[in-house]
């Protein structure tokens, strides 16, 4: 019994920092609707700033003072980020801002490296709180007890702020209708900045408070962000009590998981999230998301048309140009183009469900990596001929998408995104932990193409044919009745349902098709690299695709492909430089701010403006 209690207390102590960070994220999302992926970076900044301040300030006052000062400092940084990066793009399409926050992550990573160096820092101990108290004979660190005691006060303070103060009323009103709040005489821009600063400050506080239990290092941002999102989603996005319950739930379950199922550490929280979302699609205390209550933000999408003669000619010319590359170019150019085509197909498959279907998936890598693994496993274990194994890639990925989609498709918006993320993490963990079959993170190696393809030029043509073929096929589907039905379900699900379209089924089929095409890209990938690792299934891989689709332009058909091409080239170029993450982050932020419709969308707008074809009257 005493042991259980001690475990429970450990869980509660862990929940403290998690809750602080999660409550900040929840608050930011609730008001600004921004899915802030940089939130983990503020946590990391909190840890580093906290360490630095604690080294300067001595004693009790210094320690606790440093924590408060850290909160202030990180809040200030958050305010700057909000004003510089996010304020210009509030009107951009939904979820576009998350791309900007991704840029912020990269910038903060390199800045932290520049300022604090690469070495990990041990967190200072809280003065007078070293050691343990014995509770029923079990040792419980003193600092744990302090953390457990602090958390309810913070929860209460936040709850009071949100429900009982004028500021809280304004914040909640702004959550629903920013423009109206402004029209009633409230400076909502500052309200947003304030909320963002408060949210960031909470993350910073979390980072500083955990110092006596850990320290500061450069991987903290990524390490916490997954858990934080899980907590916020399980609790229900925007709900502070929900975040608290979820933080406790996850932390306590984790402690028991460590004891009774030590191998579960990687996936436990994602399993919990998947179960919660399947049972309660909007989290424990969340409410249904009503997307675009006051009309969709951003300019309405223009109707699509297949390319005219000029467009067709350009595409044909591009393909012809690609076809003659092996004649004159060196091998590496071919490698780079193969990479680009594979990535473009992967991005195009995501863009298909995202752009036409409005389904934002955070776990699309499950199908890319799933396809790659399907082919690789066949080759590795059964020596299947490459041709056959390759066919299996899209097939297996499509089936996987059918399985995952069955659970996810009933959800919408951010919750859909997070459930896809949870499932992709499950797939990842299978690849990572089922070592007997997948060899874990040692990966499957020596997966090379068949003889007749195993040279740069033949494989180049193979990729060109299937990759470009896949992209063209997806575009064709967008122009078919099925593609139209998919867009209809996105534009007005109500009207679609009322005219006989089974929206969910259409989305389900599209999800499976997108999965299969991502699997095709994965099949090409594995044979081009000769190996596959769980990294192809990682969250980062999903986000790469997501980012290029947004950068390219969600509301354009070529967005995914162009974004993928742009990103491959920019990344290839920038990673040669010392502080490439900083530069890449700045490039992403610049594109987001300067081209809120994405690269293709903004170029089109510019082109129309140059040709004055915007005379169409709106009434």
């Amino acid at each position, binding site marked *: 019994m005493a042991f259980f209690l001690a475990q429970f207390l450990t869980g509660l102590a862990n929940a403290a920092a998690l809750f602080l960070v999660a409550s900040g994220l929840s608050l930011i999302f609730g008001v600004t609707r921004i899915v802030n992926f940089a939130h983990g970076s503020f946590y990391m900044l909190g840890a580093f700033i906290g360490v630095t301040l604690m080294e300067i300030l001595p004693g009790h006052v210094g320690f606790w003072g440093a924590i408060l000062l850290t909160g202030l400092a990180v809040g200030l940084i958050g305010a700057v980020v909000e004003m510089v990066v996010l304020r210009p793009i509030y009107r951009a399409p939904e979820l576009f801002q998350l791309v900007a926050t991704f840029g912020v992550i990269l910038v903060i990573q390199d800045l932290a490296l520049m300022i604090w160096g690469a070495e990990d820092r041990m967190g200072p101990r809280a003065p007078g709180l070293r050691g343990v108290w014995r509770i029923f004979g079990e040792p419980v660190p003193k600092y744990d007890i302090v953390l457990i005691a602090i958390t309810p006060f913070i929860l209460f303070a936040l709850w009071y702020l949100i429900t009982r103060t004028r500021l809280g009323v304004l914040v909640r009103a702004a959550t629903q209708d920013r423009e109206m709040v402004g029209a009633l005489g409230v400076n909502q821009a500052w309200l947003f900045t304030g909320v963002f600063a408060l949210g960031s400050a909470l993350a910073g506080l979390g980072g500083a408070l955990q110092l006596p239990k850990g320290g500061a290092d450069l991987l903290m941002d990524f390490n916490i962000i997954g858990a934080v999102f899980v907590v916020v989603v399980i609790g229900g996005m925007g709900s502070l009590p929900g975040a608290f319950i979820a933080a406790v739930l996850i932390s306590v379950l984790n402690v028991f998981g460590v004891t009774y199922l030590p191998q579960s550490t990687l996936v436990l929280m994602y399993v919990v999230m998947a179960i919660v979302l399947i049972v309660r699609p909007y989290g424990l205390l969340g409410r249904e998301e009503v997307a675009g209550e006051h009309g969709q933000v951003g300019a309405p999408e223009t109707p699509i048309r297949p390319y005219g003669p000029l467009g067709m000619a350009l595409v044909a010319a591009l393909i012809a140009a690609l076809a003659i590359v092996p004649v004159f170019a060196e091998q590496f150019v071919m490698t780079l183009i193969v990479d680009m085509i594979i990535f473009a197909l992967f991005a195009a498959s995501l863009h298909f469900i995202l752009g036409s279907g409005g389904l934002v998936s955070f776990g699309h890598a499950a199908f890319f990596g799933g396809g790659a693994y399907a082919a690789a496993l066949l080759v590795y274990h059964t020596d299947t001929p490459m041709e056959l194994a390759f066919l299996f890639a899209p097939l297996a990925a499509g089936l996987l998408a059918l399985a995952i989609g069955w659970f996810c498709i009933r959800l919408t918006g951010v919750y859909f995104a997070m459930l896809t993320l949870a499932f992709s993490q499950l797939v990842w963990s299978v690849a990572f932990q089922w070592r007997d079959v997948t060899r874990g993170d040692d990966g499957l190696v020596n997966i090379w193409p068949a003889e007749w393809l195993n040279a740069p030029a033949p494989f180049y043509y193979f990729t060109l044919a299937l990759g470009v073929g896949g992209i063209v096929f997806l575009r064709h589907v967008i122009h*078919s009745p099925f593609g139209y039905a998919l867009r209809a379900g996105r534009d007005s699900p109500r009207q679609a349902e009322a005219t006989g379209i089974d929206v969910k089924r259409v989305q389900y089929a599209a999800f499976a098709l997108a999965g299969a095409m991502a699997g095709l890209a994965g099949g090409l990938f594995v044979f081009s690299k000769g190996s596959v690792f769980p990294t192809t299934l990682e969250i980062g891989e999903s986000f790469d695709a997501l980012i290029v689709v947004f950068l390219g332009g969600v509301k354009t058909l070529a967005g995914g492909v162009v974004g993928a091409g742009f990103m491959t080239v920019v990344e290839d170029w920038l990673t040669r430089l010392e502080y490439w993450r900083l530069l890449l982050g700045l490039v992403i932020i610049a594109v987001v701010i300067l081209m809120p419709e994405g690269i293709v969308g903004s170029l089109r707008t510019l082109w129309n403006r140059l040709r004055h074809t915007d005379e169409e009257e709106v009434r």
Partner: protein
Amino acid sequence: MTEILRVENLRKSYDGFLAVNGVSFSVAQGELKALIGPNGAGKSTCFNMLMGQLRPTSGQVFFDGENITGHKPRDIWRRGVGRTFQITGTYQSMTVIENVQMALMSHHRKIFSIAPRAWKLYRDEAFEFLRTVAMEEQADRPCSILAYGDLKRLELAIALCHRPRLLLMDEPTAGMAPSARIELMQLTADIVREQGVSVLFTEHDMDVVFAHSHHIMVLNRGELIADGNAAQVRNNPQVQEVYLGGGTLFKEDSHA
């Protein structure tokens, strides 16, 4: 006249609150019937139950003699019920005619087809429907830039696409200019006459209601308090009290 829609003792409660409380009525073939009442009287709830968006707590809905209670909206649509919305639900990313083509593709069960180019399918047929609502000149404009009244007409064209036998229209003229209101309802009345469609609609504009409906039902606090022709309803004291008021602010009066 034969009965196309019959509603029996329909009830809907939310957390103990009775939004619709035992409503029964019927709509005859070729009839244009209005459902009016104060806001919150349960009109939309009623409508959503007829169309399958909401499942009734109890009671039954019969369409053409068949029990359709609790069926999904798309199934009810396939049986021959069309619907327009209070706030228009059109496909913003498509052109006007593509909106109609989309409904036709659904009607012809082409939703899962990936072979043909969608914008070529049923174009002539769709054009005819646009002509019915006098929208043919705007066929190739993007739907997102249409004026509100035109959106309403487009929605009507979409609703007519599968040649429904009953049309449910939720505040068809909300947000339209008075002249356009009359026009749209005239159009609807013509369609009723020519195609033998029945229409059940809710409306706040009493001019529209009294000018165009054969019968009027009044709903208040979830219960039907009147069901009859214009004169019967207008002279019903209970209706005057809860809904129509002194009647000083609508047209009939000023012209009288």
